[in-house]
Each structure stands twice: as structure tokens, then as C-alpha cells.
């Protein structure tokens, strides 16, 4: 199910980073690091239609360490009404939902020592869903018993999420807020599990964002991040297929250059004191129209990490 081989590879790859956790200046692999920091502006393939207008660095964000990327947020605000339309722009998330939730359920049941056969294994646990959008992930987590806080930078998303959650007494307890991870850090909030699914590719500074996620994770807690790989296959499937051929997503939803590879994600998480324990891929079978969990992380992947005690 999980790519063990890959993980060992990743561990060896990122080991140097463990030693320089708090002092990135002395990282023994400066070339790789440099690439990490600058790739958003220089790494776009020439032929990429989606990346023809690379995002300019939002000047205001550089100092304030905000994760907000206005251009990305505007894209989401424009389609906020369609969150719960299973055939709309968020169809891929709806279709992928049972599969990613199966992964989340099994990893978190193991992590917290809960019985996976019970209906509400997460009873008594506090989860935060960062970049929760319309609540596609928050609602199932609440049904599984978790006390869920959902946050998103787009106000309209929070309205839609709240309206929808109110339709079911179990989900109406979800606490939705229009805020950012870094603001919750300022408020010194802590959660047993921190989830940011399909968000990191839309934020201004992934490394800073991961630090915020880590700060929100209580010690012994878990962090889950899913995103799209910056691979040629991801480019072909996620962008060309989803945005241009199938028209699942509005064109320009994804900026290929801002995708992270699994290695990069593990590295920046490592530096944020999160050690990745498992990684899995999601693959789409066009014949059955279903997603399944696999060890092929070349397109969509999810990482589960634990907060290393400091």
C-alpha cells in the first residue's frame, strides 16, 4: 500500500536535513535547497501553457510570512458556489474522497491506537482541516467522531461550508473560520491531527506553511498533507487532462511550477520537525472511474508524518 522503498530512499535523501533542522544556512546540500527556494520562479517548463504567466512573488507576503497567494485565492472564490456539486469543478475531490479518507482512517487509527472497526474512531480527538474549502473533507472527519475545526482563507467558502454542515446534526458541530494556519499559530492553538489536503500547491511559501502546520500539531500528533507531484506525468494528467481535456477544473487552476515533488515535501517537513512515516499515491482508473491507493506517487500523493518531540 505504501511505498516503503520510496520512504527509505527519501530518508537517505533527507538525512542531512535532519542535522540542519534549525539552521538552514548550514545545510550540506545547498544546491538542492537553493532549487527549493527559487524554483517557483525559474523551474517552469518552457512549453507549459498553464505556467505561461508565472506568479509574481506577492511582495507584501515576503516579510509578513503570510501563506496567502492572492491569485490562487481569487480562483477559488470564483467557484465557491460549486463546492458541493459532485459533477462540478470539484468533482475530482468528490471522487477521490473515499479513497483518501480510507488512507487517513487507517493511518490515524494506527497512530492514535483506535479501533478501525468502530463507526466513530476519532471520538475525543481534535483535528484541524487547513484550507478546508466547502468542507468536503471536514464533514466525513466529523462523522468519524473527530472534533473538527475547518479553516480557509476564502470567506465565501466558509459560508458554503457552514450552510452545508448545518444540514446534518453531526456535521453542524464543525467549527469553521475564515483564517489562516499562521493566525491559528499566533493564537497558540494545538490539534491532535493537522490536515492540509490539496492546499500546499496553492500557498505562497510551502516551507513556511509547513512550519505553521507543525506548530499547530501537538506533540505526539499527526500531520497529513496531500498534493500533486511536479512530474511530467502529473503535468499531463492533472493539468492537461483535468483542465483542458476533461474540463473538470477551470483552466489555470494549477500552476505546475508550484508543485512539490515528494522528496521536496519530505525535506521541508523534516525541517519543520515533522518526520514523514508513510507516503502513498492515489491513482485514477478511467475505466471504473474510481481512485485507489497505490505506491505510485508520480501524480497525486499524500504524506503522513508525526511531530518529532523537541
Amino acid at each position: 500500500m505504501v511505498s516503503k522503498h520510496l520512504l527509505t530512499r527519501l530518508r537517505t535523501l533527507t538525512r542531512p536535513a535532519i542535522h540542519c533542522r534549525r539552521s538552514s544556512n548550514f545545510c550540506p546540500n545547498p544546491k538542492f535547497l537553493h532549487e527549493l527556494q527559487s524554483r517557483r520562479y525559474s523551474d517552469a517548463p518552457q512549453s507549459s501553457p498553464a505556467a505561461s504567466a508565472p506568479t509574481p512573488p506577492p511582495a507584501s507576503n515576503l516579510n509578513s510570512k503570510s501563506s496567502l497567494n492572492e491569485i490562487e485565492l481569487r480562483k477559488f472564490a470564483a467557484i465557491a458556489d460549486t463546492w458541493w456539486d459532485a459533477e462540478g469543478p470539484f468533482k475530482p475531490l468528490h471522487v477521490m474522497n473515499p479513497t483518501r479518507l480510507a488512507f487517513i482512517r487507517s493511518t490515524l487509527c494506527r497512530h492514535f491506537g483506535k479501533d478501525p472497526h468502530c463507526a466513530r474512531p476519532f471520538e475525543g480527538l481534535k483535528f484541524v482541516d487547513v484550507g478546508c474549502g466547502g468542507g468536503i473533507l471536514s464533514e466525513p472527519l466529523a462523522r468519524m467522531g473527530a472534533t473538527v475545526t475547518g479553516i480557509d482563507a476564502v470567506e465565501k467558502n466558509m459560508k458554503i461550508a457552514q450552510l452545508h454542515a448545518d444540514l446534518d446534526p453531526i456535521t453542524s458541530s464543525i467549527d469553521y473560520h475564515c483564517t489562516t494556519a499562521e493566525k491559528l499559530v499566533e493564537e497558540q492553538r494545538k490539534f491532535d491531527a493537522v490536515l492540509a489536503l490539496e492546499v500546499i500547491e496553492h500557498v505562497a511559501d510551502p516551507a513556511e506553511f509547513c512550519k505553521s502546520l507543525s506548530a499547530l500539531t501537538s506533540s505526539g500528533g499527526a500531520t497529513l498533507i496531500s498534493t500533486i507531484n511536479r512530474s511530467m506525468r502529473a503535468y499531463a494528467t492533472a493539468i492537461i487532462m483535468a483542465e483542458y481535456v476533461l474540463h473538470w477544473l477551470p483552466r489555470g487552476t494549477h500552476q505546475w511550477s508550484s508543485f512539490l515533488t515528494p522528496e521536496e515535501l519530505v525535506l521541508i517537513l523534516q525541517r519543520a520537525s515533522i518526520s514523514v512515516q508513510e507516503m502513498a499515491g492515489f491513482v485514477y482508473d478511467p475505466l471504473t472511474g474510481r481512485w485507489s491507493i497505490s505506491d505510485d506517487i508520480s501524480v497525486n500523493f499524500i504524506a503522513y508524518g508525526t511531530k518529532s518531540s523537541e
Partner: protein
Amino acid sequence: MNRITARRVTFNINALKLAQRTLCGGAGVKLSGADSDQEIADKHGFHGNLPMHDVAIVGGGMVGMALACSLAHKPLTNQLNVAIIDSNPALLSGGCIKKEDPPDPRVSTVTPATMALFKEMGAWKYVEQHRHAYFDKMQVWDYTGLGYTRYNARDINKEVLGCVVENKVLHKSLLSCLQNADFQQKIYPCRLSSMAMQPSSSSSPHGSLAKLELSDGNSLYAKLVVGSDGSKSRVKELAGINSTGWKYSQNAIICTVQHTDENRCAWQRFLPNGPIALLPIGDNFSNIVWTMNPDESSDRKSMSEVDFVKEVNSALDNGYGPHPKSQLSGSSAFSWLTADTTLSANECFERVALIGDAAHTVHPLAGQGVNMGFGDAFSLSKVIAEGIAVGSDIGEVTLLRRYESERKPANLTMMAILDGFQKAYSVDFGPLNVLRAAAFQGAHYISPLKRNIISYASGEQRFPLFS
């Protein structure tokens, strides 16, 4: 001298239908009596001031009860708050069935697959406390008498091919099983009169609840409505699921016979106007299902008991091959039950799923009717459990489609087989009969094919018969 027993029950098989949607688009099927105020749900099983349930099972027949039992026995679903809506007094009385009671003519052939599922949820032990009969042989023969096939459980390494149980025993066993489970269920002793999807806000077409109105004037809400209310399903009607299709007309007579010796062989014989089947039901009793065309059945309806008995006997023996010596026993008033037989598929809508006869009714030939229904019930409960595991809303159409995609091929295949049998044996074309007889003779010797037929009939195989 033979005496007619129990009741002769007839039913019309007058339409072979396939379900068709009248309304398309998964979201918000608009139904009668919609009510526009949106109430906010609370956490105590009430929505506004009306009771709210996770699942409302409309129709507590064998299939509906099997679903309730199955939900009650799965760790993922046993916390669900379930409503069972049925005016059938048997659901409340809990009266017991006496072993001495004469056997009821309404029986089912339970396949090994269904038996295994009953055992898993602890319902089979209640069946075993009552009259039931395992059979390990099945003999099917053509009415020309030239060909017959004998199936033996040993051919497929099984102890039995099935078990014949009276419907009331199956029903009672499921009820006992449910009562002994630690499960939140509420029985509403009335009928469903109307159903409406609670209007949903424009931004959230999937969040609505179903509102059910009952014959006693009360209402309730449910996240998922399961129509297990039989072939004249009100749920199906209210959800706008239509049945259309091609027709053929047949009736059947059901009665009980007594043998001089114990019989463990199920018999089936194809007569010009339809098959006659004999199923052992224990204590030397057997059940007969005799299918015929409407003219014949109306003739027989007006016949005297004595003449009717003669007809049954001649249909049974008529000098063709060995058969159990049967003697019609007991006596009671004739009662002719007429039921439309429709074939439709397991269609799903937002918040509505159909199971059992509500989704499909088939010719009783091969005793698959209720087994298909049990198959639906177990499949739906499995899909609900899988949905709960990943935190889905159990009324979500995407979840229900998984049930639909699991059951539709299985049921359509079975329907096609039964329809094929039906068509092949209900027309009398002289020479063709010989060919059919030969085909049956063939089946007798080609053992892989035979094995396929048996395993299909015993509910273990999902593939088309001749694959």
C-alpha cells in the same frame, strides 16, 4: 384418495418489466407533499420536532428485516438509528410459530449463500428451531419426459444445495435476531403514504433529508429511505421509478402436498404452459409451485377440489420418470393470491434505494426471488458500512450508486436466465421440444456446465451462466 391441502395461491406473472427513470439527475428528486420550511437538525434524533432516523426501512417483509438484521450485526452500522415502517401486525406481536401448525404454502428456497449470510448475523439458529428442509438433490425434467437432469450437491463438493423454509419462519427468525441485538430500532406500525425530499439550499444540493408521511398522520425524517415494500412498492412509485417493459402473462398455483416417505430432492418439471416445481419443506411435506397461463388458472380456480387434485397428480407424474409418491394432505379454503410480477433493476436516487421485490420480482422458478432480495439487503448494508468507514453521508447518491453497480449486473443476469427459461418452456413447438429435451440430456453429461448451473442457482456465482 388425495385431498387438497392448504391454500392454492395464484399469482399473475403478467409483465416483465425493466425500471426506467422518469426523473433524471441525481439531485433532489422532487416528490409529493414537499414542505418548504427548513428546520435545523439537533443531535437527539429529532429534526425540528419530528423524529429523525439514519435509515427508514419501508416494508418489514423478509428482505427489509434482513437489512435491519444485517445493519444491527455490523460494528460499523450497529449504532445507526433505524426506523422500520410496516403495518404488518407480525412485527409487533412477536407471536411464536408452533411446530405442529400445518406448513404454510408460501415457502422460499434458501441458497447456501443466503444461509451463510444468515449464519454470520446469527439468524440461522432461529430458522433451525423451526420446520425447515435441506435438500441435496435437484431433478429438473422436460415435460416430454425425454430429458431430465439430476443435480447433486456432491458434484460441487457441497453438503446441501439449499434449504426450503416457510416464509413466516424466515421472517420470524429475522425478527428474533433483531430483537436480540443491541440496536436502536423503532417500529412504526403504519404504512407510508407520502415522501418528500426536504428542499435544499442552492449551494448544497446534497444535504437534504427525506421526509416521510405515514398513514397515521405522523411524519419522520430520514437520511436514507430503503424501499423494501414489495412489488407494489410505494417508495418506488413516490420516487418516480417507473416500470415499463414487455409482457407475458402467467399465473401460478401454490399448494402443499404430503409424501409417504421423506424426500430430500427438489423437483422441477417443464410443462407446456410453464413449470411445476416441488420443494421438500420438512416433515414429509412438500410445496408445489405450478405455473400456467391465465386461462388454465381460471379453469382450475373454478374446479372442485377432487378434480384439482387429479390435475396436480397428473401434472406431477403422467408416467414420466421417477418422482416422489405424493399425497395431497390437509384441507383449507382456497385462496388465490394474485401478484404482479415485475422485473426492474436496483436503481438508486439521492436518499432512496430499493431492495427485494420493490426492485425486481421474478418468476418463482428456481426459487431465486427472495435470494435476490437477500442479496440486495446484504449488499446495501455492506455499502452503508463502507460509507460509514469513510465518513460519508449514507444517503449520498454516489455511495448508493455503488450498491446499484454491485447488484444490477447480478440481478439482471439472473432475470435474463429466468426469463430465458420461461420463454423456452412456455411455448409448444412440437419438434422443438425434442431439441429442448436433448439439450437437457446434454446438460446431464456436460458436467462443467452443470456445475455452473448449480452454483449459479445456489447463489455463489456472479458470472453469466454459460461463461
